[in-house]
């Protein structure tokens, strides 16, 4: 029995029109701006179409090139560490029987509180003279380090902060995957006398692959765009040591008011993200339809 009815359209209409107005429209506007020399300093009257000039300028701009490099370096380092730590934590958390809910809630705390507050907390911990990190290092005889003030250390501090902040995401996702694993392959492996490592390597890991892919996708997308943590911790500095794309877009926009140029850079970030998303999404959601 199939009737053609307008009901489904009425139901989605408010939501879709809202998204067109408040999402698709600004998104398209941003693309248009990226082909203009729009600047808040000159105002709306003098918007000129400049074609791909912003994009050409960008790929000669050492600041942007450095930002692209740092964004990729930062994202790759963060994700590798998060996958390892998240997977390890999930295996440990999976052994918990009593107080599971409390344990997982404590574990995921860094992930649920505001990133800007996370960064504020950690900014204090990384600080040269008041921070506990230097204090703990001094206990094992390491001289205090100027974590956020040193060009080489700042990126490391930011990477570790973000790893701490979001590895529970990987951990909890993998944990959900672990709890849904079938028992049969393990029983068979036990009969065959497989070692613990063999069971992990040849049963758990392959079965977890889809879940790991999901975690990888979401972490990549959200690490590429990361702004608040870095902005509060270092503001992109010292120098340009942690000046990733999102920070660059922010300064280009709010300090220089170069909307056209900032939009073009933001489209590079969006394009990188969209290409990665499209590739992953296909593999993850294919079973759904």
């Amino acid at each position, binding site marked *: 029995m199939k009737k053609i009815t307008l009901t489904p359209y009425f*139901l989605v209409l408010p939501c879709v029109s809202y998204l067109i107005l408040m999402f698709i429209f600004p998104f398209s506007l941003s693309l248009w701006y990226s082909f203009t020399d729009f600047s808040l300093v000159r105002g709306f009257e003098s918007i000129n179409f400049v074609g791909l000039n912003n994009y050409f300028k960008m790929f000669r701009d050492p600041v942007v090139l450095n930002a692209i490099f740092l964004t990729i370096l930062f994202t790759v380092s963060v994700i590798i560490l998060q996958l390892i730590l998240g997977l390890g934590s999930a295996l440990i958390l999976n*052994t918990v029987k009593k107080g599971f809910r409390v344990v997982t809630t404590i574990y995921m705390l860094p992930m649920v*509180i505001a*990133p800007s507050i996370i960064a504020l907390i950690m900014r*204090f911990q990384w*600080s040269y003279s*008041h921070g506990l990190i230097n204090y703990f290092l001094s206990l094992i005889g390491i001289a205090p380090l100027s974590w956020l003030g040193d060009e080489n250390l700042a990126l490391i501090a930011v990477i570790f902060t973000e790893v701490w902040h979001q590895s529970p995401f990987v951990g*909890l*996702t993998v944990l959900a995957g672990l709890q849904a694993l079938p028992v049969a392959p393990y029983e068979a492996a036990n009969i065959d006398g497989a070692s613990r490592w063999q069971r992990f390597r040849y049963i758990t890991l392959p079965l977890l692959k889809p879940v790991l892919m999901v975690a990888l996708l979401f972490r990549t997308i959200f690490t590429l765009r990361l702004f608040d943590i870095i902005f509060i911790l270092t503001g992109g500095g010292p120098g340009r040591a942690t000046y990733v794309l999102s920070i660059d877009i922010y300064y280009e926009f709010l300090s220089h008011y170069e909307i056209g140029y900032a939009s073009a850079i*933001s489209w590079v970030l969006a394009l990188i993200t969209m290409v990665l998303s499209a590739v992953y999404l296909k593999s993850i959601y294919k079973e759904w339809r």
Partner: protein
Amino acid sequence: MNPMKFIDNLITKFLLFVILSVSFFPIFWMIFTSLKPEVLAFSIPPVLVFTPTLSNYISLFNPYWMTIRVDFMRYLVNSIVVSISSTALSSILSLFAAYSFTRFRFVGSKFLIFLILFMRMIPPITIAIPLYVMMYTLKLLDTHIALILTYTALNIPLTVWMMRSFIMDVPKEVEESALVDGCGVFQVLLRVTIPLALPGIITASIYAFILSWNEFLLALLLTLREATTLPLIAQLFRTAEGVQWGPMAAAGTLAILPPIVFAFLIQKYLVRGLTMGAVKG
């Protein structure tokens, strides 16, 4: 229990302890510091024994006591108003859309649902710039409305996908029998689907609330003085590091409490929400 198993168990327990400590310690330390008298706030080595005081919290609500005057009350009220409004708006819009996407197949439905998923993947900073220009043109900068409207747009993709995932769990047969009994689509939605999917719908709303409560980038761009929300206290205190760690810790503690309580409540469905239904926790 054989000795191997005992050692094994011990190592696991130890590692669990390490994982939980690492997760919790910095947050605990902020809460701990917020209860310290101001003079002890940054002594190194840290002072562990002291008489807890609420003075940091009290001074938050009396801004003239502080060196940097933070009208904490305004931040708090703004956060509450903006988060609740945008949560309500996005939940209502998403609920009908999610129901439609789950129960009907219509021309363009597949395209639309994936378009909505795709929006979640787009970095907010890309739409933040035109949103700034839009709000500037409409003279809505630094108002609640600007934040409510933009947060709703950012929340909808997430709430639609979460609610869709929960409505799919409601057995179709129940709805069909209600239809046979003569209920209209809206009656089925109100009397059957919503009550059955309620835990999921509430979870999605709580999720949207947490996101709005924690949002930083758009609050930073679209507000200046009047509509500033709690995450911005980080920006405010950042510049004055070491000056007022006490009140700062107190403000941070109050700002993180609602998400922690809510996260505990929806803990069971958190993974499903985080991965937009791709992994069912």
